């Protein structure tokens, strides 16, 4: 039998224990619905408040987080999340407003959303922004729907191919797959740029467009970006920018100026919405002039202009050829938009540029410190992240072992095995909110681990050894598929 370090909330339950109680009813009683409409049993946990607090406190201590230490997870932008954002997003005026309230009663919310749309347009160089998408992948799906709608509106029905570089995030092809389009993979050249010859060969009148992450997932800004954009546009395609790596570009360059037609923002990466253990994120989308009519509905607009004495009246507007609604209500307002609005307001134009400059400095500093120890396959000035190989000649050590060993040094590992075009990839994104001492300690640890790989490889194979939990049996999890506490342990394999 496995050892249980912390029982589940179901196992902690004891019949009759009470937590928070509700007031007695203050209205005359009404009979319940007929018995055949009622549930027979409600087998949910029964605990006291202190039981609940101690359980979740204990679980919280099983986690490693940005508040604990360095979290250089490539492409995830694990920056420090300012505490003030936690307070502003919980102001009663934001917490207790209903999404369907009359617009006259929520002008504060609508003004914030309107300004947020304007700010994101200014930062990215786009003509329109929707705040509705719930996450990056949701924003991507929104963008691809708009690209399809644009071609369809022009009667250009033969466009079914999306060009996607081999370094792209898996969400790009998956978003395209949701619309039944086909994917043409474009390889990268030896400097980590899009291979222009291969791109040229793929460009024809069946191309919907290209989805490009720039800087790409190698952390490289494409040195021929203007040629890439021109080639795609010359064949009638649209340029999609994956905004996952926008933390490198604030005040540095605006994707709209480079000719991109559509891009999603990851407010949970670039604009400091905390990642929450996997969500909620927030994925607004910006578009160029030719796509503004296709944005999801509704957007926030000015319904009545104001003057020097009265504020304008904000409300909702529907673009002429809108692709429709992406989710219920108006996007991740409280947990997403309010936090990012606070963050942008506190940085201003110069502060935003500092963010990207220092994010890029930190990545280049780590790259410089590790260059002699680890192979860096695309070695030039990187942007906010870089990728190195987690393997050594004549050794069976893999990127996974290095990652697990880093936990013994009290660091969160980098992203591993991505991008797919680098063997045993370790993708490192330090962000701007780490100091030189932390970066030095991390580089020292990785250099030490490279030595250990030669002298004591078992330390890496058996890592982590200092954490509460060791490596997990992932095959058992997938084979037995125990997905709920109350299922018996010998639950049969599912069909």
């Amino acid at each position, binding site marked *: 039998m496995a050892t249980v370090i912390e029982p589940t909330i179901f196992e902690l339950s004891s019949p009759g224990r009470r937590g928070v109680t509700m007031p007695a009813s203050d209205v005359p009683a009404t009979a319940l619905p007929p018995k055949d409409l009622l549930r027979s049993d409600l087998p949910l946990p029964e605990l006291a408040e202190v039981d609940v607090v101690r359980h979740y406190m204990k679980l919280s201590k099983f*986690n490693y987080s940005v508040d604990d230490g360095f979290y250089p997870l490539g492409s995830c932008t694990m920056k420090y999340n300012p505490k003030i954002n936690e307070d502003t997003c919980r102001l009663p005026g934001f917490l207790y407003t209903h999404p369907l309230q009359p617009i006259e009663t929520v002008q504060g919310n609508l003004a914030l959303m309107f300004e947020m749309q304007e700010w994101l347009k200014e930062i990215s160089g786009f003509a329109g922004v929707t705040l509705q998408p719930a996450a990056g992948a949701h924003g991507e799906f929104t963008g691809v729907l708009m690209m399809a709608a644009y071609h369809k509106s022009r009667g250009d029905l033969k466009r079914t191919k999306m060009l996607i570089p081999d370094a792209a995030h898996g969400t790009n092809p998956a978003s395209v797959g949701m619309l*039944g389009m086909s994917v043409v993979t474009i390889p990268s050249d030896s400097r980590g740029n899009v291979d222009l010859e291969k791109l040229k060969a793929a460009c024809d009148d069946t191309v919907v467009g290209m989805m490009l992450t720039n800087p790409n997932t190698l952390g490289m800004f494409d040195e021929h970006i203007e040629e890439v954009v021109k080639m795609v546009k010359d064949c009638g395609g649209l340029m999609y920018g994956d905004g996952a790596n926008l933390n490198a570009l604030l005040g540095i360059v605006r994707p709209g100026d480079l000719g991109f037609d559509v891009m999603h923002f990851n407010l949970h990466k670039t604009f400091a919405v905390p990642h929450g*253990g996997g*969500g909620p994120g927030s994925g607004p989308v910006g578009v160029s002039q030719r796509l503004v009519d296709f944005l999801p509905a509704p957007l926030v607009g000015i319904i009545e202009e104001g003057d020097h004495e009265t504020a304008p009246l904000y409300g909702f507007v529907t673009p002429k050829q809108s692709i429709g609604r992406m989710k219920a209500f108006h996007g991740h307002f409280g947990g997403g938009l309010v936090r990012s609005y606070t963050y942008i307001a506190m940085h201003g134009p110069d502060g935003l540029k500092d963010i990207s400059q220092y994010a890029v400095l930190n990545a280049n500093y780590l790259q410089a410190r590790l260059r002699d120890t680890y192979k860096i396959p695309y070695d030039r000035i990187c942007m906010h992240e870089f990728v190195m190989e987690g393997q050594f000649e004549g050794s069976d050590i893999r990127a996974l072992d290095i990652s697990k060993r880093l*936990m013994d040094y009290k660091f969160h590992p980098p992203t591993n095995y991505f991008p797919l075009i680098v063997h045993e990839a370790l993708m490192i994104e330090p962000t701007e909110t780490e100091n030189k001492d932390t970066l030095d300690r991390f580089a020292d640890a990785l250099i030490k681990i490279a030595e250990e790989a030669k002298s004591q490889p078992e330390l890496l194979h058996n890592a982590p050894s200092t954490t509460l939990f060791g490596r997990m049996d992932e095959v058992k999890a997938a084979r037995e598929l125990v997905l709920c506490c109350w299922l018996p342990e010998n639950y049969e394999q*599912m069909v």
Partner: protein
Amino acid sequence: MTYIPISPTERDAMLKTVGVKSLDDLFDAIPKKHRFPELNLPPALTEMEAAAHLGEMASSNENVREHLVSFLGAGAYHHYVPSVVDHMLRRGEFYTAYTPYQPEISQGTLQAIFEYQSLMATLTGMELSNASHYDGATATAEAVNLAYAQFRGKRKKIVMSPSVHPQYREVIRTYSQGMGLEEAGDDASADLEVGPEALMSLVDDKTMLVVVQYPDFFGRIHDYTKLIEDAHSKGALVCIVANPTALLMLKTPGEMGADIVVGEAQPFGIPLWYGGPYLGFFTTKKSYVHKMAGRLVGETVDVRGNRSYVLTLTAREQHIKRERATSNICTNQGLLALGCSIYMSVLGKQGLQEVANLCYQKAHYAASELSKIDGFGLCFTDPFFHEFVLCCPKPASEVNQYLLDNGILGGYDLSKDYPALQNHLLVAVTEMNSRDEIDTLVEILQEMK
């Protein structure tokens, strides 16, 4: 204000190690004519100024705790959130962690999701739950994707009741525009009085999925057992969009035989927050697990023999399958799923039953008192839970304006979505509404000319 912890001296030392003279020199790869644009944004605020500015924006709203008495629901509900919930969510260990890709140092998040899956499966009476979706509407759209994958595109018809939330139906239409689906039943001018069995005339051997809501958008409770049996006999799957508070009292969709149960778990510990972020739940039968989108946590052991948890069945997901993935989703609503679990745990079985009972009792008191007013009445006679349709003697928009002038946020104006329901308000009552508030609502409407 800056959060960059690097001094000028340290910066210069780092630049030297990199081998460049200035920060600007790091950006030579960027086309020169577009490099370093001037951003026209307001100047930076300090923390003190930002707190004041945001405070002002927030207080220019009229909120349902301090300014307005609310009877508005329609997919987002004002419930009491026990203090413990936010205290736990404010633990940095939870909210500043990423997706639990490294299970050795993410067991807190993983066990919490595993418990969430167990709680939601129990609540809905289904065999398993995923780790959650963006909201109730997108969870419903994912049910359509599951059905599409299940029949590998061989069945392409979806039958949707007009009494499914209008915004959910809109989202399904947006999501499915590349799938070539045939949609039936999604007609706001259909006869809304008829029971769910009427949908069966639209279900045929091309139908992949039937979508109904429970209680439906108008608050009515239908037993879908017969509809599900009949749909199954045609080979179609059935998805029920359910309200979690109602499920604390009512027969579970699992007991009715549903294949997929989805819904909005905002009522369980998540503030109204002007519409988001919320929490879409998704539960189903074990036979559909491989076709289901979204994250999934499974139990296992570590090398030391400790019971532990990992993300599992990831081969379905985008980072492995790319364009053949079941969905492009790569997040769940992690922190809110945690909030939902804490809400359910700290109220516990009895506290939750009290919440459901208060909603039911107060809504029925309100319905009974409102229908006594001259010219007002209940639109439907079916049993309801905590929401009902009130027929008014004049257009709903006028009634709502009158109520708002008296500090009351009235119900949802159904004329926006249903042409036949011009004078109809969808009224929601929860445990937050006192008898005094209900009596005041009744008095004000009695005085309305």
